[in-house]
């Protein structure tokens, strides 16, 4: 009797031991749907990101976005590489203490064409303050047609003047409304930027 029970128990646990790897592999493959060559390229980028301490989630997400949009594998690998390079440049610009959100926001700004020097100016203007929201709004403004230099200067001036996240989100909403109403993007930004009060003394504004 004892022997029979022990054998049954051992058989059940042995089954679990053998099935565990197969069951573990049923976890969805985060970059499924890529052809072998593109998959190899994306996996290499993921490995590089891990090795450099960069977040891998934006790369995985970009891959999934491309697969979901039925983009060709070659294009997906190319876009993921662009994101990887942007993240790397963002890390160099913002430094090792930058958060994941700051890095992805800075990467987005870089992809929008904002020069890394402008991002470094934002970081230096208020060291220790998260620059995620100013970077997100900056990338949006450029994407909507505001010239890069105009947008970079305006956002830097507001940021250095003590503007907060709510100010930037309000600015973005106002500019977006004005553009939809027919205003030129640069004019919309400059008009709305003047409405935001400066909170720092003029001597501290660059």
């Amino acid at each position: 009797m004892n022997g029979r029970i022990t054998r049954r128990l051992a058989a059940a646990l042995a089954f679990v031991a053998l099935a565990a790897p197969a069951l573990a592999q049923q976890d969805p493959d985060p970059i499924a749907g890529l052809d072998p060559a593109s998959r190899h390229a994306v996996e290499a980028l993921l490995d590089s990101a891990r090795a450099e301490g960069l977040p891998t989630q934006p790369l995985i997400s970009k891959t999934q976005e491309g697969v979901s949009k039925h983009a060709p594998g070659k294009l997906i690998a190319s876009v993921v590489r662009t994101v990887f390079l942007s993240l790397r440049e963002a890390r160099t610009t913002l430094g090792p203490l930058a958060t994941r959100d700051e890095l992805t926001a800075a990467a987005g700004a870089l992809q929008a064409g904002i020069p890394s020097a402008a991002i470094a100016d934002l970081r230096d203007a208020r060291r220790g303050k998260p620059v995620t929201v100013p970077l997100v709004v900056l990338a949006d403004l450029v994407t909507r047609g505001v010239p890069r230099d105009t947008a970079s200067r305006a956002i830097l001036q507001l940021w250095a003047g003590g503007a907060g996240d709510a100010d930037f989100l309000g600015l973005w909403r106002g500019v977006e409304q004005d553009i939809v109403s027919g205003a030129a993007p640069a004019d919309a930004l400059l008009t709305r930027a003047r409405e935001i009060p400066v909170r720092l003394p003029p001597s501290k504004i660059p």
Partner: protein
Amino acid sequence: MTDSERDPYVEWIAQEARRPVDLGGDARARLLAAIRRTPVPARPRHPFGWLLAPRPVAMSPLVGAALAAGLVGIGVLFGVSTNRRDGRAPTEQPTAVAAKAQLPVHDTIHEVKFVVVAPQASHVALVGDFNNWNPSATPMTRTPTGGTWSVSVHLDPGRHVYAYVVDGKQWMADPSAPLAPEDGFGVPNSVVLVNRGAAL
């Protein structure tokens, strides 16, 4: 107290008790036969009685190894089940402190409501980095009044990128949210910022 001082009745009982009793030569055989005739008491029938009853267990090294491997397998499965499925490592927790202004934000449950107007659509889905860009993961619901579609999802604090898929084929950014730059797939996405605390 000596024997002569005992009660005579007690003395008589003691003598009787000391006297050998003749059980006969087949007493042992009769006793064993009587035991064999006695029915074995039935064990209480409990569905898990065989599991709960204590018993010594002897096993070979092979069976012991199988048991150990099984326990390790259970541990592997448990570990797999507790990992995140979106590819985000535990150390990659988002840390941004912004929030999309018009979205409801709570301290502990970050439920964000997405709303889009698409009166001609027959199906609208929300896709983003929070659902692996899967168009079938988060379908939106048409409001009873007409062409507005909405869905509420729980998001981690931080920056999220998303879009809407109309009728399974048309991708569109959220007109009421900041844009993420277009980076090669043809259509820009939107950005939502979720705070840990108050809405901005």
